[in-house]
């Protein structure tokens, strides 16, 4: 399994072994590294909208609602310190990890609700 260290101040998105992940930071809560693919059709969840009150993330493609508790349960094993973080990702140990900083829309206080489903 790849053990990947990064600086959470400059990295919030990564790809490894065909999977995408992003750092989900909720106010007053410990950050999570979660899968970026919506379970519905694989939409980029980092571009979704957070509904903090409803504890949901809405996928930008079809407004699929994903419960935060589901994201919490399926989050990658992650340790975050003040200026460094480490995550253990699935896959072979030598899998290359591509880390980036991206614009995340799935951040508080963006709480606009999607219309429709």
């Amino acid at each position, binding site marked *: *399994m790849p*053990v990947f260290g990064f600086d959470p101040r400059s990295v919030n998105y990564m790809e490894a072994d065909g999977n995408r992940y992003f750092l989900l930071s909720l106010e007053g809560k*410990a*950050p*999570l*590294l979660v899968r970026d693919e919506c379970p519905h059709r694989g939409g980029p969840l980092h571009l979704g909208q957070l509904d903090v009150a409803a504890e949901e993330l809405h996928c930008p493609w079809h407004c699929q609602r994903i419960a935060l508790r589901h994201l*919490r*349960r*399926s*989050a*990658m*094993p*992650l*340790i*975050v*310190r*003040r200026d460094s973080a*480490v*995550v*253990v990702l699935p896959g072979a*140990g030598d899998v290359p990890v591509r880390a980036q900083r991206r614009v995340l829309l799935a951040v508080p206080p963006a709480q606009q609700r999607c219309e429709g489903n």
Partner: protein
Amino acid sequence: MKHSPVKSSPPAIDLEDYNLFRRCLIQYGESELFTDTEEWLSHDNPYRRTLRPHVFKHLDYSRPLRREDLLTYNSLSANRTLLTIYEQDFVLLPDRDFEAKQTDFKEFYSNRSIALGAVVRPWLERYLFSFLDKEISITGGWTADTLKAYFQDFADSLRRSASNKAMEAILASSNREHAARTFLIQLAGDFLLEASAMGRNILGHYGPLQSELFKIVIDEYGYGVHETKHSTLFRKVLSAGGLAQTPHAYWQFYLTSSLLVNNYYNWLGRDHTKFFRYLGAIFQAETTFIHSCARMAEMMRAVFGREVDVRYFTEHVHIDHHHSRMVFEKLIAPALATHGEGIIPEILRGFEEAALLGQLAEQDFCDQVSWSDDNQALKALHPPIHAKILSGELQPSRQQFIEPRGELSVTHVHDGDELCHINSGVMHFVTGHERHTVLNAGEGIVIRRNRLHGAIIDSEQCTYTIHSIGDHRKCLSSASTHAL
């Protein structure tokens, strides 16, 4: 008939009452054992340790310490007091002259002191260690496999990296012997009582894990052969460095962070809800120690000569290979199998906290070495800053002291930079064991924030002024503030 517990109202003792804690702390300090001393070293008396208790009434422990404030005076005082409370659980006897120290012995273990310490301890623990919750977060679906991969990666990274900042600081110091002794003094606080904190987890009933932990303790205690006990080996290292070998001889020269690390392991060992956290912490310590002990042995030989006795360190290079493996394979893995993967966050928390505290202590030590080395340069900063004070350009708050020959200021730290100015007489400004800068009338020195120091008067009388200058660099800049 089932009886449900009924809460007493009002409670017999409200342990959450800050004022109760404060009163108990002040009363705890009301002992001859803890008052200021006229000597730098404690001579074979493990019960006497200055806590500067006259200051207790001015200290605020109501809010937890922030990481930025870890090296402040409040923290130093809390750490000195907490270690004293912890060590009242251990059997400490002097090497000789017990009869002359019997009163201290009885006082140290008195019901009065133990009972007061029991109220004070949880407050100081909360004060000192709560910051760790904010510094480290552990999330996601950790499993036995991901934990193993992470720990394996950590062990591999240590094998790849040979650097050790503390050893580099010693070898680069302008006084390598002093820097090395300062380092050994930091270790002595823990190593002369080695594995006592670990021993707190030996009693009880918890299946095969208990027997596995016991095997590690047996190694630490040299299988009952006193000559091979690790603390005995460490005494030989101290002897090689020309240092006293009795516990806490150098109490005044422990850095805040060294006390904090020592207290951390006692905290985990004493609070059994943190048993799994303790396993993570000792895995971190045992694994790191394999490599750091190799560097320490090299440093000792480089500073004190090839013939120096470094068996303490070489023993750990060898045995901690086993201990690291034993902690993972015989303690952590079976604990996961028996108690479930839900304990992983606690194991990881212990691992991460131990690593963080180790880094903080290493940096604190390096900064203290620089501080001691830079004293002449800091003395040279006195004239320009003092000139600005005299001209009125700087107007810091000040305190004047008049002290007789031999008056010793117990080591302490300040929370901001200070300028010490000698009005008359002579002061020996102390920055470590047997290291000082002479300050004559008209001279002075910048005292850096958080840096451990003390002083002793070397004239019939000395009058000196302490100016609270905040940040000495700002004082030196042309646009310095007027009222500080």
